[in-house]
């Protein structure tokens, strides 16, 4: 359903992505893991044209777009069918929670305001914020803000939702709420591509796990294959380090 092929990207001469391929089937939850600097966030941003790739193709439900030479019209078209959840939520600070969700529906998709409000309320209900419609971002906790961010991405019923480290900016006790919402979405059959450090979440929810390092996909497979018995030495090293870090928390 979604496929990116041979994505290359360099920042000021430093190659960050060296030919990455990702394939996502309808309803799949794909988790991308990797140490910082491995290019996973850049990959996600390239897939939604937030970063312009130097080379690569995106195929979204039959529509093929050149990531390096996409026209404005093509980019908009692709974005209307995708959602994006940011690490820092990036909510519109001058808009209420409900307005954050409906903004893209009303202005971007020309849905009548009344209908958009209904969709928006439903989306906020889904993420457990039915009592926060009229709150401004500053009046919400980090976890609540991120759930508004998820509602905003879900509301337009996109074909796929990208999550860029959605829990990395949150206090530990708030992470659970966000992950619960994401799990619910996964169970409903939402197609998701998630960059995260939450190992147990990956193990539990992912259909496919990609391990990236140094701008390439080192290993991919089911969570069982990649997380429990990785074939590559680099994956093993990474997992050892990450799992030890988790020990520290406990």
């Amino acid at each position: 359903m979604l496929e990116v092929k041979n994505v290359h990207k360099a920042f000021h001469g430093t190659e960050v992505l060296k030919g990455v391929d990702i394939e996502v089937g309808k309803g799949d939850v794909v988790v991308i893991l990797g140490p910082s600097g491995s290019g996973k966030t850049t990959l996600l941003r390239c897939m939604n044209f937030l970063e312009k790739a130097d080379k690569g193709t995106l195929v979204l439900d039959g529509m093929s777009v050149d990531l390096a030479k996409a026209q404005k019209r093509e980019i908009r078209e692709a974005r209307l069918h995708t959602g994006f959840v940011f690490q820092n939520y990036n909510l519109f600070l001058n808009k209420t929670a409900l307005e954050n969700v409906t903004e893209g529906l009303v202005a971007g998709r020309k849905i009548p305001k009344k209908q958009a409000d209904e969709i928006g309320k439903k989306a906020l209900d889904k993420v457990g914020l039915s009592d926060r419609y009229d709150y401004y971002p500053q009046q919400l906790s980090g976890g609540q803000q991120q759930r508004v961010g998820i509602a905003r991405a879900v509301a337009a019923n996109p074909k796929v939702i990208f999550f860029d480290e959605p829990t990395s900016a949150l206090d530990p006790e708030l992470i659970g709420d966000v992950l619960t919402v994401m799990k619910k979405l996964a169970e409903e059959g939402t197609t998701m591509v998630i960059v995260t450090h939450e190992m147990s979440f990956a193990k539990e929810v992912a259909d496919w796990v990609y391990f990236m390092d140094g701008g390439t996909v080192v290993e991919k497979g089911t969570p069982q294959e990649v997380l429990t018995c990785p074939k590559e030495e680099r994956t093993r090293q990474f997992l050892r380090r990450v799992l030890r870090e988790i020990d520290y928390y406990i």
Partner: protein
Amino acid sequence: MTERLLGILTRSFGQILLPGIITTIPLTILSFAIGMLIALAAALVQAAEVKGLRKAARFYVWMIRGTPLLVQLYIIFYGLPSMGILLDAFPAAVMAFSINVGAYASETLRAAILSVPKGQMEAGYCAGLDYFQIMGRIVLPQALKVAFPGLFNSLIGLVKDTSLAANITVLEMFMATQRIAARTYEPFALYCEVGFIYLMMCTVLTKLQKYGEKRLDKAGRMTGKPVTGRGGVICWK
């Protein structure tokens, strides 16, 4: 204070205030309104990095901020006629003041636009909005709140700068005062008097600014301070 001086001051008060009301205030409002439009255009082409126009805007700001307002007034009123462009004094003053205040206000606006966290722009794109929608609905409303005190600064400055229009024969408050002072030989009292009237006008504006800031605070609920989140990313809480 002698009775004569008191008489001059009371009689002149109306004679000074009248041109203030029919000239200084309209001159200020008109110039500021046009200046704001220029400022918005100059700030937007820079923020949007429109090639060519961005450079033109930088050049404009550089020119205007780098030359005295009085010189700009003289060029427009006394200089342009030799190029075949003849303007009446009032329109010439409006032109000079709007161009001048536009340059300063564009910098205030540009900084305010830049102060809106860039992630909201990206989020806007991802939500399916186009550039103009994001600017109009998300970024500018927040930027205007940030720019508000700075823009008021420019407005208050402009009120007093309009006194320079006396140099190009605009009969505003200062020129009216000059005339009365020349007639009565009481420069000290009269210039103090006109200064006081300017001060009162600016006092009203200062109050207006406070009121406006309060209103904006309520409207935007952006009372929070920027905090550094994890990973050194600035966000608002």
